């Protein structure tokens, strides 16, 4: 694999290989020595044009546990038309002999553009409102483990509800594309003002009535609601949002037995998710965080673990 830009680029074999290797990587986290020598001598630059402490930290740990040299570059503020162009920023670092870039950017498509300019491998750590492939992979990983533990493994027939600000969410786009490959059904739930244009062509069920689908889903994936969306007039108040789309205690109690609760974090408790749901036994919130390191180790291994020429054998 040369880059990971979109989950839509992954074949079923590749997606499963990433999840399988992540299982092995997670074992490393339980060892006395949490380090593999695999990427010794490789240099990974985390370029975050937008702040994200958790994603950056997760990638940094992943790289370090694989023995790569990881460097964090905070490029925040340089993403304007007046500043240095994205191309110049990328070419400058690429010229230093970096092996891989992990890029987070507030603009949709910026990571794909960067990948077109550099020699190094590129991992998309979230671009604007477009994609966040490692988040979707770690969601899939945590969900797979959850159902495996219940003896109900397999994507066929699983229904995943993704609830919240779909319009501005990169997580939803990557999840829809990944699940199209893996095989679970997705139900998209959002107020009508937060549904992306053309969402009906994504091959998912779409509704603005959370309660109507609640009892039928195996996973409730609650998306973070940005408070600035209220100012944008997408919905009137947090209270009204929580009433229609929050995973309240009442809604929690109506979920199927064993249904999993996911949230990419950080959570607005009391808005899109109640404390009861966030802390419930079947909440995968912390499993998702733990999975983040393992999945990112697996992704870095798939990109950098072989020769630079050719694809996975």
């Amino acid at each position, binding site marked *: *694999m040369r880059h990971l830009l979109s989950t839509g680029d992954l074949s079923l074999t590749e997606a499963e*290989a990433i999840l*399988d*290797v992540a*299982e*092995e990587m997670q*074992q490393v986290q339980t*060892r*006395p*020595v949490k*380090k*593999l*020598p*695999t990427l010794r001598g490789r240099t990974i630059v985390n370029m975050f044009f937008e702040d994200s402490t958790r994603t950056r930290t997760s990638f940094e740990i992943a790289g370090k546990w*694989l023995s790569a040299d990881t460097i964090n570059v905070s490029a925040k503020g340089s993403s304007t038309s007046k500043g240095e162009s994205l191309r110049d920023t990328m070419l400058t670092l690429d010229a230093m002999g970096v092996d891989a870039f992990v890029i987070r950017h507030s603009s949709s498509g910026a990571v794909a553009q960067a990948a077109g300019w550099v020699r190094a491998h590129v991992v998309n750590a979230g671009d604007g409102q477009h994609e966040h492939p490692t988040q979707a992979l770690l969601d899939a990983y945590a969900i797979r483990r959850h159902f495996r533990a219940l003896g109900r493994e397999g994507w066929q027939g699983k229904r995943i509800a993704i609830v919240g600000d779909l319009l501005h969410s990169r997580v939803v786009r990557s999840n829809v594309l990944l699940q199209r490959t893996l095989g679970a059904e997705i139900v998209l739930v959002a107020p009508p003002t937060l549904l992306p244009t053309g969402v009906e062509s994504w091959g998912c069920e779409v509704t603005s009535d959370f309660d109507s689908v609640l009892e039928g889903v195996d996973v409730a994936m609650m998306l973070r609601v940005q408070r600035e969306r209220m100012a944008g007039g997408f919905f009137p108040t947090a209270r009204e949002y929580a009433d229609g789309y929050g995973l309240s205690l009442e809604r929690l109690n109506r979920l199927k037995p064993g249904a999993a609760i996911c949230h990419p974090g950080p959570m607005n408790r009391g808005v899109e998710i109640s404390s009861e749901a966030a802390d419930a036994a079947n909440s995968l919130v912390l499993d998702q965080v733990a999975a983040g390191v393992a999945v990112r180790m697996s992704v870095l*291994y*798939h990109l950098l*673990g*072989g*020769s*630079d*020429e*050719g*694809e*996975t*054998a």
Partner: protein
Amino acid sequence: MSQPPTGSPDIEPVRVIIDETELARTVARMAHQILEANRGAANLLLLGIPTRGVCLANRLAALIEQIEGAPVRVGQLDITMYRDDLRRHPTRLVGRTSIPGSIDDAVVVLVDDVLFSGRTIAAAFDALRDLGRPRAVRLAVLVDRGHRELPIAADNVGRSISTAADERVAVRLSEVDGYDRVTIARVKEGQP
């Protein structure tokens, strides 16, 4: 059990060096030797190196259990992430590592099918070091074909054979391949 193929299009002629009956006998002898060297099954931990080393480790464990009447710990150790030649090949698939309990103070017997350059075993030492501190590490292989590139020797060898560098030793085990047999063949010109 499926029938072994009579030949392979890219490798020939194929010579059978260990057949099914002899393979069973060889593995049984190895089980006895391991017990003898360890003076019993106490503290033994057999770790197979994927893929066929794992099958051999399981067979050895079953035999030891028969002989001793008590179960012996067996697991598997994947060394892909520790290889020194990762960047010479496309990305390799990673196998499973699964250790029953701790390796600390155990007598670890690494089990592999073929001992050749020794690099796999060197990588296994690195992997073990990250997992803990065994009291001792021993090596059991079904076939030692020579051509070592590192100062490594097996404690326990099913069969030593002399080979040419361009020959290929193929171990086939029923768990993976459907039949038991070890063959040797000269790789044709242009073949890897």
